[in-house]
């Protein structure tokens, strides 16, 4: 049966430029059982129901025997992204303290000016150039600079953590039918090393607080609890990695989409106030995160199928956001779309922690890029993609800035 290999076909690198026809097949199938016994789900309403179901775990350690990954002692630094309540809630609440409401309601918003300045500096470097790689020259350095500033990581250390970050993302990827142990072991190793590095940075600020999040984590009032060393390491690694690896794709996918829809690009140039809804539409239409992994803690009935306890489930959120049963003309890019409750940031208790920051970064970045894009062309379409199927985006996006756009 064709659906047996859907996950393999989706994760096959050849599908990276356009997985959407496969998602349509998946939605047709409802729930697709994979050759390894795991399940793949792509319908919007099914995914939302599961993401709000307390019987679905984010903790891989709840997988049944044949699906076990690493041994528990190899999995020490588990970030709250991969934990369940109540541990998830406690750690996320502590991580939220210096980042969002109720304790720091204005923290992210206060970054607007700085994000605009970084954006401007990066865009100014375009001047006089005819070719650039949007990823290396803009979409990657912007979020890296922002998250470094927010956390309190020296920007110059980027070469130090870049490899760790790549290894961690690689370990987190979904690749059907492949022994994941080696990747996961490398990922655990990279997390440990990165964690040690970040804890050291934080410890240097103990008793000498500044306005960074690492500083806040070691100098927080103890009333609400504190992060112990391992928790601090896991949390800081998560924030640093997730804080830039996703936004790169959001900005790059955004530029790619706008260049493929010159009429909408023109419209945004004329009506820049549409940018917030345009970014929401990008999160629906070309989201950075495509797949989420979960484990049922009980037998759960979905769309006429029983998901067995302990057997991994992959939720194709990018498919859900293109479900015609939820969105009208889902394959149409419409920057003015209303009622756009996409799954670009997930849903439920693990709803993206960094969403407010990602929104500001993407809105600022794309607004600043618009004038440059109006005379830009893609030199490769589709561009070369990163390997990851879970975190999907172009590895490079070469642009030709000088030649006038071909209005088709």
């Amino acid at each position: 049966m064709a659906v047996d290999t859907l996950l393999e076909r989706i994760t096959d690198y050849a599908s990276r430029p356009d997985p959407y026809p496969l998602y349509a097949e998946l939605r047709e199938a409802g729930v697709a059982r994979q050759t390894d016994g795991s399940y793949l789900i792509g319908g919007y309403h099914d995914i939302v129901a599961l993401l709000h179901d307390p019987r679905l775990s984010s903790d891989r350690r709840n997988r049944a025997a044949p699906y076990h990954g690493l041994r528990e002692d190899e999995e020490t630094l588990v970030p709250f992204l991969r934990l369940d309540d109540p541990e998830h809630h406690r750690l996320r609440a502590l991580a939220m303290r210096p980042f969002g409401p109720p304790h720091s309601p204005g923290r992210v918003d206060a970054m607007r000016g700085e994000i605009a300045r970084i954006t401007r500096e990066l865009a100014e470097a375009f001047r006089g150039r005819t070719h650039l790689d949007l990823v290396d020259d803009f979409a990657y350095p912007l979020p890296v600079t922002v998250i470094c500033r927010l956390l309190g990581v020296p920007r110059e250390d980027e070469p130090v953590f870049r490899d760790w970050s790549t290894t961690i993302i690689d370990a987190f990827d979904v690749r059907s039918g492949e022994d994941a142990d080696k990747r996961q072991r490398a990922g655990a190793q990279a997390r440990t090393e990165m964690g040690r590095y970040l804890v050291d940075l934080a410890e240097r600020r103990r008793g000498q607080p500044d306005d960074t999040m690492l500083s806040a984590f070691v100098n927080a009032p103890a009333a609400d609890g504190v992060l112990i060393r391992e928790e601090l390491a896991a949390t800081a690694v998560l924030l640093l990695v997730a804080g830039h690896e996703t936004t790169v794709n959001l900005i790059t996918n955004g530029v790619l989409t706008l260049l493929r829809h010159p009429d909408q690009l023109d419209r945004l140039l004329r009506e820049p106030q549409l940018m917030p809804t345009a970014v929401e539409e990008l999160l629906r239409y070309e989201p950075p995160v495509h797949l989420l992994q979960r484990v049922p803690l009980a037998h759960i009935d979905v769309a006429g199928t029983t998901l067995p306890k302990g057997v991994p489930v992959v939720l194709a959120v990018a498919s859900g956001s293109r479900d015609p049963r939820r969105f009208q003309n889902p394959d149409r890019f419409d920057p003015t779309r209303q009622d756009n409750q996409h799954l670009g940031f997930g849903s439920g208790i693990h709803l993206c922690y960094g969403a407010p920051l990602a929104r500001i970064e993407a809105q600022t970045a794309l607004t600043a890029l618009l004038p440059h894009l109006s005379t830009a062309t893609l030199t490769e379409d589709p561009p070369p993609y990163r390997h990851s199927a879970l975190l999907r985006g172009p590895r490079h996006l070469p642009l030709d800035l000088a030649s006038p756009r071909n209005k088709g």
Partner: protein
Amino acid sequence: MPGDLRDGRIVIVGASLAGLRAAETLRDEGFTGSLTVLGEEPWPPYDRPPLTKQVLLGTAAPESTGLPMRRDVDADWRLGVRADGLDPIGKRVLLAGGEALPYDRLLIATGTRARPWPHPEQAALDGVLAVRTRDDAAHLADRLAAGPRRVLVIGGGFTGSEIASACRERDIEVTVAERGPGPLVGALGGTLAKLAAGLQRAHGVDLRCGVTVTALRGDDKGRFTGADLSDGSRIDADVCVIALGAVRNVEWLADSGLAAGPHGVACDAGCRAFTRYGIVTDDVFVAGDVSRFPHPLFDYQMLSLEHWGNAVAQAEVAAHNMVSPGPLRRPHLGVPVFWSNHFGISIKSVGVPTFSDQVVVAQGSVAERRLAAVYGYQGRVTAAVTVDMGKWLEHYQRLIETAAPFPPAPGAADGHPLISELPVPSDVPDPAGLSHGPTVALTGHLPDRRLTVRHSGT
């Protein structure tokens, strides 16, 4: 005929959240006729939830609570004008000044007002007030800013709890006098009342349960000075807030022939008003707090809700049906949703907790002050309330919509089985015995009894 429905004269009585959203929907759906919105207060429609929260904390000005208009509704706003009566045969709304306003279709959205203190001379004391309108909230905010020795709040429902919370946040001493066994008991039952009571006391509220206030006292200058309680004790305070729930604004309909009574104006699932004989009208519609409507998820009992979300949803359905021919009309079947923030926690409710015979703590615990409580009636899920766990609520809403079995299946991800405490009686009191209204009132019969007919005398 459909063409006619988009034209003519529509009058909306009530320049409230429901009135405004109905007006916007009428225009959205292509109504091109004349639209008149009548409001008793002199202000354009404003939002009430901030009145007992931000306004009392001083973080928002009362004037800043105006509701955003989502579009130009091109209406004749008659503000500061009260409707005094309805002539359903002549199709006219009678105004307080003697004027009569003709209509082809009418929307009743007159909402509720604060239930007054039963003794007018005590209620007239300086320092005794309720919080229902923008002016009320401004008045109380001024009183709180003046630094009273103590505030007495009569009634521990959501409004009373939010006011008490605002007082504590401003470091003002406050006493809450609650007739039932705990705060919020009328809306959420005994289990959560225990949690709410613990929370209030932990925040320094002088909470008195199982007592009523027998008299409000004043000095010779007519200023409120304190109150006597039924247990013989006495409270000295400078401000007294009456938070005894709401009264529905139906008096103006007394001679209209509509089924309008203390529980509101009865209507069908399409928001069309009933006459007192139970015959549905076709030109009079009802929406918002003043309405009572049948709901299939709750045995078609007539629900009266005082929920922000219900006002919006019902107004939109009513407006749609006012301009749509019969087969295109929609029912108002939304699952009731409600939320409140006080004492640093967020309480969210879905379904009708008072329509229950059992409750179970499905996630978290009362001790953690973080939980999801699921309510069941005769073996199916009918409601859920979360405390600081709102992101799970959607799951329970689905259980309610699909009439899932109660108690819900075990296996939650939070470490312990879904059913952490065995189902216990939901301890929902008889609404008739509550002085401050539950925010959800089921009329007709109590959920533990099977009655079929009730004559609501008017």
